[in-house]
C-alpha cells in the first residue's frame, strides 16, 4: 500500500486563461500531493478546473491559458517552466497520461504497434525483437491479444482502445499517471472491465495515479484519497472512506447525495444556483452562491483549510 514518500506535489498552483474579456481563474491556489502507490481522485463538475490541474501537471496548458504561479514537483523536481528539452525527458518516463477520449486518443492512420513503440523508443534504447516482445507483454498485461499489434485504431472497440492507452501509459513504468476520466466514454460493463484492468496494472506496478472524474461511484470504487474541486478551488481533501462517511463541505455532500442509487429509492434533492463568473470571483468562499448554509462570514474572506480527521481537510467556515 501507499508509503509516505510524496512522488508528486502541487504547491499553490494558479492557472489563468487570458480571454479578451478578462482572465479566467481556472485554478486558484491549488495544493495537492500524491504519495507513492496511491490513487488520488480529483472530482468536480465540468469546468471546475480539474482538467486544468491535470494539464498543468502535464505541462500542457495551451494558450490562452498559462500557469501564473506555484510549483509542481515530481520526485522533488519542479517542472514548471522547465525547458522543453528537459521536460521531454520527464514525460512518459516519469509522467504518463491516460487520456479521456478513447475514440480520438489514438492516431487513426498509424498502426497500434508504432504508436506504442514510439513512446518507448523516444526514451529507451530498445529495438527489434526486444521491443516487439515488450509491446506484446504490455498488451498481454491489459488483456489484449497480440493481434492488436498490427491493427489500426478503427479496427478496435472503445474498450480495447482505452486498454491500449493504459498499456501505453505503463510502458516505461512511470512515477505517476494522470488518468483523465479514463472510462467516461464507455458503456457501463466495459467501463467496469477497463477499471479493473487499470486497478490490476496499478497494483502490479505500484504506480501512483491521479484519477480525474465526475462519477462519485466510480471514485468510491477506485481511489485511495479524494480531492474535491469547485470553481477552480480545492474545497475538501481526504481518504475516500472518511469523505464518503463524513463529507464536511456542503459541496461534497451535494455531490454524494446526488449519486442515484440502484439499491434504494430516495427522494430527489434539488439544488440550484449559478456558479459565479470565473473572471470575477467573489470575495470570500467560492461556493457562497450555491451553499444552503451561507452566512455573512462566508462573504468576507476565503475559508482556510482545517483538519477534521486524519488526512482529511476541508475549507469551510462552519468548522
Amino acid at each position, binding site marked *: 500500500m501507499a508509503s509516505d514518500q510524496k512522488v508528486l506535489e502541487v504547491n499553490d498552483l494558479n492557472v489563468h486563461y487570458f480571454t479578451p474579456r478578462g482572465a479566467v481563474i481556472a485554478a486558484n491556489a491549488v495544493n495537492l500531493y500524491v504519495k507513492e502507490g496511491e490513487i488520488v481522485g480529483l472530482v468536480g463538475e465540468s469546468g471546475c478546473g480539474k482538467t486544468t490541474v491535470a494539464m498543468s501537471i502535464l505541462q500542457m496548458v495551451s494558450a490562452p491559458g498559462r500557469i501564473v504561479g506555484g510549483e509542481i514537483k515530481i520526485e522533488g523536481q519542479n517542472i514548471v517552466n522547465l525547458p522543453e528539452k528537459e521536460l521531454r525527458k520527464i514525460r512518459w518516463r516519469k509522467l504518463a497520461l491516460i487520456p479521456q477520449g478513447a475514440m480520438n486518443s489514438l492516431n487513426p492512420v498509424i498502426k497500434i504497434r508504432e504508436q506504442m513503440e514510439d513512446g518507448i523508443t523516444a526514451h529507451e534504447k530498445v529495438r527489434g525483437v526486444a521491443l516487439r516482445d515488450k509491446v506484446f507483454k504490455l498488451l498481454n498485461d491489459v488483456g489484449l491479444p497480440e493481434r492488436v499489434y498490427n491493427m489500426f485504431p478503427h479496427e478496435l472497440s472503445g474498450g480495447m482502445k482505452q486498454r491500449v492507452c493504459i498499456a501505453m501509459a505503463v510502458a516505461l513504468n512511470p512515477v505517476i499517471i494522470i488518468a483523465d476520466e479514463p472510462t467516461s466514454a464507455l458503456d457501463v460493463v466495459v467501463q467496469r472491465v477497463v*477499471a*479493473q484492468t487499470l486497478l490490476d496494472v496499478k497494483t502490479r506496478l505500484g504506480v501512483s495515479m491521479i484519477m480525474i472524474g465526475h462519477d*462519485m461511484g466510480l471514485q468510491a*470504487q477506485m481511489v485511495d484519497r479524494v480531492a474535491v474541486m469547485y470553481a477552480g478551488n480545492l474545497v475538501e481533501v481526504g481518504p475516500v472512506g472518511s469523505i464518503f462517511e463524513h463529507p464536511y463541505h456542503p459541496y461534497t455532500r451535494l455531490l454524494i447525495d*446526488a449519486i*442515484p*442509487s440502484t439499491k434504494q429509492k430516495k427522494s430527489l434533492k434539488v439544488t*440550484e444556483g449559478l*456558479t459565479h463568473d470565473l473572471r470575477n470571483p467573489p470575495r470570500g468562499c467560492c461556493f457562497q452562491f450555491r451553499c444552503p448554509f451561507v452566512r455573512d462570514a462566508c462573504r468576507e474572506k476565503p475559508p482556510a483549510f482545517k483538519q477534521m480527521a486524519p488526512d482529511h481537510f476541508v475549507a469551510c467556515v462552519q468548522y
Partner: protein
Amino acid sequence: MEQPIISVQDATKIYGGGFLSTSKPFVALDRFSLDIYESQAKIVTIAGESGSGKTTLANLVLGFILPSSGKIMYKGQDVSTMTREQRRIYRKEVQAIFQDPYEVYNPFYRVSHIFNMVVRHFNLAQNKNEAQQLIEDALNVVGLRGSEILEKYPHQLSGGQRQRIMVARAYMLRPRLIVADEPVSAVDASLRAMILDIMLKLRDRHHISFLYITHDLSTAYQISDKMYVLFQGTTVERGNAGKIIENPRHPYVQELIDSIPVPDPKMKWNTNITLPPEEVMRMKSSVGCRFYPRCAKHMDICTRAFPEYTQVEEDHEVACYLYQ
C-alpha cells in the same frame, strides 16, 4: 378498451444493406412493441447501452425515421400515413427533450425564438399578450421567469436552465407524451435531480407520460414506473422498473446492474467480470438470443430462436431460456 396514445407494434429498423451498398444490413431495433396509455401517466424507461437501439426507438416514436417493418400508431393512426392536420395534432401531443440542452438552441436567436416558433406553428395564441401569458405559465412550471431568460442568448444560460426551458417549451403544448432522450446525461450531477424532479411533477400534476431513454439504470430506478431493457435491438427484460432493478433475471441485466459502481468505498467490486474476446463480442447472431456469445450461462437452445417472454412475477417478463 382505451386507445393508446402511442402504440409501437413489432417495429423493426434495419440500416444499410440496400442495393449497391457495401455495408451489411444492421438491425438497430428488432420487433419492439410498446403501448402508452393516456389515462394513467407513466414514466416508461427504455434502458440500454450504445448500440442497443434505444435512440432508434426514440426517433421512430417522434416520426423522424420510419420503421422497416411494423408500425408506429398515434391514437390508432399510422404515423407514416398522416395528413398534415393529423401530423400537427400528433406533433402537439408527442413532444421531446434531448440530451444536449445546448445543441437544441439555434445560436443565432434569443431564447424567445424557441417559444415563438411553437406559438406560431401550433396557433396557440390569438395575440401577443396571450402568447406572453402562455410562455410565462410554462416557465413557472419549471421554476423560471420570462424576464430572466427570454431575451438572452442560449450561451448566457446555465445547463440546468437550458434543459428546463426545453421542458417548458414541451409543456406549453400540453402534450400527452414527452420523449426524453438522455435528458440528464450531459448535465452535472447536482442539476440532474432538478430535471428528474420536474419530470415527476409533470407526470403527477399534469398527467404527462414520459418515454425516458437512458443508459443509466440508477436514475431510471429512481423515477420510472415501467421499464424495457434493450440489448442489440432486442428487448431482454420488461416490466415494473423497481422489480427489474431489484431482482434482475436476464444474465445481461444482472451483469449490467452488477457493473454500476457502488458509491460506497466499503463495498468494493469483489468479483471480476471478463468479457469474451472481441471477435466473439462482435459476432452477431441474427436468430436466437443476442447475448449468447457473452453469456456465462448459455445453452445450446439459445441460438435456435429468440426466447419467448416468460412472466417471472407479476408485471415482470424476461426473454431467456433459463426461465422456461
